[in-house]
């Protein structure tokens, strides 16, 4: 009895082993890439668009790079750091991917970067996460990021908004590293120009009820800087409208994203004229950007009128990976050394312009100040009012000036 059982187990085990061998033999001419995005939780809509961006880049390469077939293995997180690390760990340790793309959200980026230190044989390329800390504090040698962080893209907006007549603003933002960075970017210019920020409200991600935060907005501010994303942003706008609020918004980069602008509600028109700053704009109107938008629209039936930032960021990061793979002919030997070297020296032509990496493997590239307009079809889209061609992770400040401010947090910077 026992022996039969033992033999049965043996058969199963050997079958599995053989299956495993044949699988790895097949894997010789393909490269498995883990693709992590938020396909659950509050940022689900954003995660889905991120996947579209990644797939668009791969389609452009017809599924091949460096002579090898590229296969995405998808993973899902819910915008929380622990869930991002769990999903990454599953992709790396169980699915045995060769390269990783992701994650989507700020604090997830910090956590995945920390995890990447424990897996030095794998190269991690960011998805769209834009927390400053990820590459600024204790950077990991195998974590690369080809998109600007949240502070970089907001840095030009502060002084611009001040010149436009906004002097006192309240901040309502989600409570994690990406909005910290966005707020710091804005405030670095705004406070320097003489603006005041008397109050900041950091609300938990996924909070749907803003009515009490809205009630606590001081009378004497002339604008509200709102850094919320997805469903949270939509809920905030609706409740602000219901409460009869009429102060103009200054918007964080993901607030004027198509994921939010496509929302159907009465408060939509009040967004026209809203200033923001970001990685890109819907109406950037350069040939490269228009081509990217056309490809995006053509490739997906259920897509937004224009690709969101997340689609763009995942597209750029995947494109960087594919270009580097082409350069090294898919050679990932020797701890992926050649591949990493190619990534480090890449002159990446993205749809918004040239992006290069600094010594922390973080992107240096363009940012755009935008304003919301209504186009002929009645869609809300962002239009560029000013382009900053090159901004680095220290916000183009001197090292001393930046270090005096430190990285963005709940308290820093401050100018009440």
């Amino acid at each position, binding site marked *: 009895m026992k022996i039969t059982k033992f033999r049965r187990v043996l058969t199963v085990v050997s079958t599995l082993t053989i299956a495993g061998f044949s699988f790895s033999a097949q894997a010789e001419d393909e490269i498995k890439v883990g693709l992590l995005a938020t396909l*659950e939780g*509050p940022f689900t809509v954003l995660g889905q668009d991120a996947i579209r961006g990644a797939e668009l880049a791969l389609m452009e390469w017809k599924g091949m790079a460096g002579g090898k077939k590229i296969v995405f293995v998808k993973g899902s997180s819910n915008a929380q750091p622990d869930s991002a690390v769990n999903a990454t760990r599953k992709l790396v340790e169980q699915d045995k991917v060769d390269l990783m793309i992701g994650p989507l959200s700020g604090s997830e980026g910090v956590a995945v970067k920390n995890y990447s230190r424990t897996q030095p044989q794998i190269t991690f390329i960011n998805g769209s996460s834009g927390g400053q800390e990820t590459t600024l504090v204790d950077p990991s040698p195998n974590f690369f990021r080809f998109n600007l962080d949240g502070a970089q893209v907001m840095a030009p907006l502060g002084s611009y908004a001040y010149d436009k007549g906004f002097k006192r603003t309240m901040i309502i933002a989600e*409570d994690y590293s990406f909005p910290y960075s966005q707020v710091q970017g804005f405030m670095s210019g705004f406070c320097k120009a003489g603006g005041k920020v008397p109050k900041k409200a950091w609300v*938990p991600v996924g909070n749907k*009820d803003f009515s*009490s935060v809205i009630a606590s907005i001081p009378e004497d501010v002339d604008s509200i800087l709102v850094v919320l994303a997805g*469903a949270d942003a939509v809920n905030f706008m609706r409740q602000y409208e219901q409460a*009869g609020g009429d102060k103009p918004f200054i918007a964080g980069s993901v607030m004027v994203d198509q994921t939010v602008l496509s929302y159907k509600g009465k408060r939509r028109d009040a967004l026209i004229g809203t200033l923001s700053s970001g990685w890109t704009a819907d109406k950037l109107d350069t040939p490269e950007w228009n081509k990217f938008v056309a490809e995006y629209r053509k490739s997906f039936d259920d897509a937004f009128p224009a690709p969101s930032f997340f689609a763009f960021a995942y597209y750029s990061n995947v494109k960087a990976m594919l270009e580097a793979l082409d350069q090294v002919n898919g050679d990932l030997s020797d701890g992926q050394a050649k591949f990493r070297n190619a990534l480090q020296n890449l002159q990446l032509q993205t749809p918004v312009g040239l992006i290069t990496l600094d010594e922390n493997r973080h992107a240096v590239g363009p940012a755009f100040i935008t304003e919301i307009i209504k186009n002929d079809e009645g869609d809300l889209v962002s239009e560029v009012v000013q382009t900053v061609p090159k901004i680095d992770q220290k916000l183009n400040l001197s090292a001393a000036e930046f270090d005096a401010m430190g990285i963005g947090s709940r308290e820093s910077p401050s100018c009440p």
Partner: protein
Amino acid sequence: MKIHKRKVSAIVYLIVLALFATFAAWAITDNKNLFVTVSMNGLTIAALYFLVAIGFTLIFGLLKNVNLTHGSLYLLGAYLGYTVADLSGSWLVGVAVGTFGVGIVGFLLQVLVFRHMQNQELQQALVTIAISVILADLMLWGWGSDIYQLDPPDWMYGAVAIPVIGKYSIYKLFILGFSISVGLGLWLLLNKTYLGVMIRAGVDDQQMLSAMGVNVHVVFALTFAIGAAIAGLSGVIGGSLMSITPGEDTRYLLASLVVVIVGGMGSIIGTALGAILIGLSEQYGLAYAPTYGVIFTFIIMAAVLIARPQGLLGRE
């Protein structure tokens, strides 16, 4: 010994009340308008939490069924309500379909799942977690991850003038009144109707009730259906106040759990008390300490679990 315990808890309640009174006094002198608005917001969100949790506490308290699909039933009600209201153009039809549709799902859950694992709480918990995961994915498949927003009828949409704070959303006042009526209705159903008598008798002695010629299975299935229908109803009501997105299921399951843990399983008044405590603390947190506001809810829960593990008004 008992008297001593009562004395201690009386002192604890007094301290808590005194702390709250100090906070309220400070908040009123600081900005009366804000304090009253936030309190009203706390009560309306409490009304919504009560509406969601009451079905949960009914099913657990009376049937001893641990139904962790409760959040999924809420979200299903919201989606059904949205789709029907969108097609028919009538919010009320959406409310009706959301309520009855989910009621039927609840009935099926009781007949097909819970009947086969009566009194096996661990099994029930595991099976319902599995069902809620499956339901969540099915809903993601059916409705996608878009942000839906139900609009209540126009006459409820605007604001109305009320004393002290000026304008306040009519729809929120409606939620407040509506959930008080649902609570009262449920209390009447349980205490003043024949069905209520049978439900309570069935909980105390199932075999005796069945020996008296009552079909116990039907009674239990009906109770479960009522609890589920209220979850579906609150989905439509809540989906008209805030957005409907994937993930709301776990959010409201957690909210219901916290509310009934604080209030006491199976008690309608306890659920109301729990909902008010959680609703108010959440809103005060958001307005006065937005960064750390979330912690208050869990401090309350932890404190109740330490001092009165059965909940504030739960039976030992």
